[in-house]
């Protein structure tokens, strides 16, 4: 269907639209008009993605003169594929209505691991080795060598791509990763480099968060994007954590050992070069004198480029004299590694600010701040000069240089924490030095500055006013939408008491109480007897899950269960079997951990999750030094109270967990928050509004047997057939005519 929103004709590929999708589009349209940033919360299962895509592409179509571009960031490859598939449907629809002028180029960009078609390279097990494998075949010096010596292996796909040169373009259309690979295979062009090349021409680019947020890769991929681009962060409820992770580094003993080894290899290489071809090193030296910025015209495969998070002047400045010579740079790095390992030998937990750290570093090891700042770029320059291709071997020294650059660059928003052992296992010495970033706005600031509109959207962004403060920006629109439902298909409950009326909680002083553990066990057991098919049960942490399962096992109240572990393969297998058990009618329980992989990425829709039990409030480990440091920083800088942030963080995790069960409006599911703390207003009110609106007052303070009864009634009610379009007064699906009527009405309202 197509309809008008203000002055934009929106092409929507389906015959019906949900009212909330319509409102969502209106808000989006306003954001784009205002050229500002926005925050929108809309529950999952309401077709957020398609609403976004269809409005933005339609907006571009209506303004053909503007070079607007959509950059869509997803968290996982799976989501990327889903988004592209939706876009494809939309694109076909637009072509059908508008003809060839609606043609756009949309591509997904991912790592080599997902895009490579060379069978020998892609066989490697992890991402870094695929990258290194690719470099071994495509680096410029390897290819130069190969032109003389036919025995040197090259990648035929890349060669073909290079040969085709400017002729290597993708015809307009929507390409999923799969299709990109197929296209590359068919033409014999390397899909990865093709995609990277096409990014600057594409109208829609779908890729992962890292490409924009992680300074290490953002430079390569995203520097070509125009200012007019619209950036969308989907499922962005954890965006602050992503930002922080992108700028945090941790150094362990292993890293240092690896770095020492790397250094000795580099020095061997240097000696070898000195013996054979000293001119290369001299050329590098000269280049460095002129400044790093001039390095930009290297061929794309060798291009490493830099931090957009770094101040611009760094790129223009010349590298300080004491690290221009390769040997001198190695000495500096050696001293740095030595100093770090000396610091790691400490017996106590230490916390320091970057400024203090740099000061002590310069007094003990004689390395000043400016030198530190350049480590990252200097190392890469050196590695290019030395023609090192197996970059995955050199991760350790890269980590060290990363660390050095960050310490040298930022004085605020970071802290350095040295812990001699893990808090939870004080007997095993495992010293770790962490440079942790506290300020999520540092990594995302360039994105906000650079692009005209940034949209942050997710199913759970409540409380919505906290995000602008955390990320330090000013949205023009921030709104939260609820779901219009034909029936009350979600049933959240807060369970505060066990069957023996004793309160249940995972509060620290109560969690190991056998009574509480028994009550949780009983709750699960009774729920299993009334809920068919799949049940998902989330715990606050792995250690608590292990503990409670052991206790249950000893008291013999377990049955068919599957457990998420930290091992990915094992978890996948467990999930697979869990699905099978649900399919075959056996029924099963899946134990998982909030903040785990399952809670973030796996859907338990339909019969795979009729009930989700959230045992406890998933607070972060509050004694962790990093968290404490971050909280302190937040309080001092953004005036966010510790308690507020902790609750916010815990509740968004909880909402994320329970949101796994509802993925569409036809679905139904129950959610049990099993902790007495959920009944307090300050906690509860931070849940997203689409859950809150279904949380009845009567269900706020339940005991096990009351919850059981409600569950029974709910399941029976939901099993009844129902009318999908909703009754006349509560329309949940709008056809074109109804929408037009609504459009007139809402215009009217808005003019008031």
């Amino acid at each position: 269907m197509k309809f008008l929103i203000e002055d934009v004709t929106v092409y929507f590929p389906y015959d019906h639209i949900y009212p909330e999708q319509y409102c969502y589009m209106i808000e989006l349209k306003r954001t784009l008009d205002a050229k500002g940033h926005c925050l929108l919360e809309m529950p999952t299962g309401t077709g957020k993605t398609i609403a976004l895509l269809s409005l933005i592409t339609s907006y571009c179509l209506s303004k053909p003169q503007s070079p607007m571009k959509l950059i869509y960031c997803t968290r996982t490859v799976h989501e990327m594929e889903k988004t592209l598939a939706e876009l494809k449907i939309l694109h076909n629809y637009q072509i059908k209505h508008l003809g060839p002028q609606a043609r756009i180029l949309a591509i997904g960009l991912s790592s080599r691991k997902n895009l490579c078609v060379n069978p020998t390279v892609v066989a490697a097990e992890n991402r870094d080795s695929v990258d290194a494998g690719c470099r071994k075949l495509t680096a410029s010096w390897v290819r130069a060598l190969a032109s003389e010596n036919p025995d040197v292996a090259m990648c035929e796909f890349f060669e073909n791509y290079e040969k085709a040169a400017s002729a290597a373009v993708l015809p307009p259309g929507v390409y999923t990763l799969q299709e990109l690979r197929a296209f590359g295979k068919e033409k014999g062009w390397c899909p990865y480099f093709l995609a990277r090349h096409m990014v600057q021409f594409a109208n829609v680019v779908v890729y992962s968060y890292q490409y924009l947020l992680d300074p290490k890769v953002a430079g390569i991929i995203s520097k070509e994007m125009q200012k007019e681009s619209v950036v969308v962060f989907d499922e962005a409820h954890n965006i602050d954590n992503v930002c922080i992770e992108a700028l945090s580094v941790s150094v362990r003993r292993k890293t240092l050992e690896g770095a020492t080894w790397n250094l000795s290899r580099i020095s061997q290489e240097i000696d070898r070069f000195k013996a054979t071809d000293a001119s290369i090193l001299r050329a590098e030296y000269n280049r460095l004198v002129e400044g790093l910025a001039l390095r930009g015209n290297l061929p794309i495969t060798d291009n490493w480029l830099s931090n957009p998070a770094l101040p611009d002047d760094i790129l223009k400045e010349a590298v300080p004299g004491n690290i221009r010579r390769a040997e001198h740079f190695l000495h500096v790095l050696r001293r740095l590694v030595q100093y770090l390992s000396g610091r790691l030998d400490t017996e106590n937990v230490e916390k320091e600010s970057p400024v203090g750290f740099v000061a002590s570093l310069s007094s003990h090891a004689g390395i000043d701040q400016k030198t530190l700042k350049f480590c990252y770029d200097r190392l890469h320059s050196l590695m290019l000069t030395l023609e090192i291709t197996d970059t995955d071997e050199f991760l350790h020294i890269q980590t060290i240089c990363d660390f050095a650059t960050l310490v040298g660059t930022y004085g605020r928003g970071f802290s350095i924490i040295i812990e001699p052992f893990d808090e939870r296992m004080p007997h095993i010495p495992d010293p770790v030095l962490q440079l942790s970033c506290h300020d999520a706005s540092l990594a995302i600031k360039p994105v906000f500055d650079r692009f005209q509109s940034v949209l942050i959207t997710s199913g759970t962004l409540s409380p919505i006013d906290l995000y602008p403060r955390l990320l330090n920006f000013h949205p023009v629109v921030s709104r939260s939408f609820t779901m219009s439902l034909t029936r009350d298909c979600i049933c959240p409950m807060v369970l505060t008491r066990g069957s023996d009326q004793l309160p249940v909680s995972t509060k620290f002083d109560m969690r190991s109480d056998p009574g509480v553990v028994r009550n949780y066990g009983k709750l699960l057991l009774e729920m299993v007897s009334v809920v068919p098919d799949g049940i998902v049960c989330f715990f606050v942490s792995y250690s608590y899950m292990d503990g409670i399962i052991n206790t249950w096992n000893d008291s013999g109240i377990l049955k068919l269960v599957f457990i998420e572990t930290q091992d990915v393969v094992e978890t996948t297998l467990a999930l697979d079997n869990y699905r099978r058990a649900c399919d075959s009618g056996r029924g099963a329980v899946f134990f998982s951990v909030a903040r785990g992989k399952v809670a973030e990425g796996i859907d338990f829709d339909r019969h795979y999750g009729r009930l989700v039990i959230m045992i406890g409030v998933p607070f972060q480990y509050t004694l962790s030094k990093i968290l404490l440091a971050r909280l302190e920083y937040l309080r001092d800088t953004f005036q966010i109270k510790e308690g507020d942030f902790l609750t916010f963080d815990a509740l968004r995790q909880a909402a994320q967990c329970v949101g796994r069960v509802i993925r569409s409006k036809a679905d139904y599911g129950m959610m049990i928050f099993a902790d007495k703390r959920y009944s307090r207003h300050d906690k509860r009110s931070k849940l997203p509004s689409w859950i809150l609106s279904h949380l009845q007052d009567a269900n706020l303070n339940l005991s096990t047997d009351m919850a059981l009864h409600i569950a029974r009634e709910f399941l029976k009610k939901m099993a009844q057939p129902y009318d999908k379009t909703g009754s006349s007064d509560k329309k949940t699906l709008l056809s074109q005519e109804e929408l037009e009527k609504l459009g007139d009405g809402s215009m009217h309202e808005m003019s008031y």
Partner: protein
Amino acid sequence: MNNGAGRRINGAAEEDDDEDDVNGDLDAWERTYTDERSWESLQEDESGMLRPIDNQALYHSQYRRRLRSLSSTAARIQKGLIRYLYIVIDLSRAASEMDFRPSRIAVIAKHVETFIREFFYQNPLSQVGIVTIKDGVAHCLTDIGGSPESHINALMKKLECSGDSSLQNALDLVDGYLNQIPSYGHREVLILYSALSTCDPGDIMDTIQKCRKSKIRCSVIGLAAEMFICKHLCQETGGTYSVALDESHFKELILEHAPPPPAIAEFAVANLIKMGFPQRAAEGSISICSCHKEAKVGAGYTCPRCKARACELPTECCVCGLTLVSSPHLARSYHHLFPIAPFDEVTSSHLNNPNCKLQRNCFGCQQSLLDPGNKPGPAVVCPKCKRMRPADMHQLLLVTTLL
């Protein structure tokens, strides 16, 4: 439907109950309250008054749905008149639960009895068998046959519940039996399922495909909640899946299976069947009955081909295997092919309109169309003669009359 609001419970009272639940030693008067939860059949209206839960809307929507399904079948549709139906009753542990009064199994048994009688009344040419699931094993309680009494008697004797339930075992067993029946008969299974899981020896998906291949129509009525596997089974084999809300709803659901379903298209080949119309023997004549193997006096039927005596109709002759029916049976089956047309609904505003010269009383029963509160209830009008009847009456006509 905001039944949830009705669940607003006085916290203190509830706590008492719960403690008692735990202690397990309740007085009889207490038990009636904890078991029945009579407060839950009340709900609060807008002004805070308590009133019984209003299921009117629900029933009305069900009525509409039935009408719709009827109107969609109003076109010439083939119906399987000769049905071979197995009723599978789940006697697992879950069937002994007490959420239906007095227990699930008692309710099931009671309504299966009504169903079997109703079934034979509407489908005199069809036959029924009963299978039970208990301890994960399926048993054939009665072989397929045409006598309601024998099925009911057999069922009433075996109502103990225990163990797990296995859908696959039951389907395998039924599939084995139904494969033997003649090709003109329609194979159906009605599963009354109490459990919420199934413990199967093998892959149930294979069994479902097998049922589908042998054209067995499987329908399930659940007593607790919707199960994926049951839904899948019904979808695959063309049956219906429903879940009972309470006892009366259960009764309604099970009786919906009494009228013959539309025939599966590819299976609906027209067939000629040989039948005999036996004569009723003269009063006082003595003969040896072929079904009970004993001498009986009077009131029997004589097979027109081999002259053997049968006690009741319809049946199959024990000697020559001829299907014995009487002509009223045929006529009764026949009416399913021509259902009465759906009536038009009359809106209440229409009824209240004083200018409108519609009658205020039902044409059939002469009762007022207005509810006791002088509010007009739902009414319908016959499209042919334009006479009004209340909506319930139309339902009655649809379900029971053999016009």
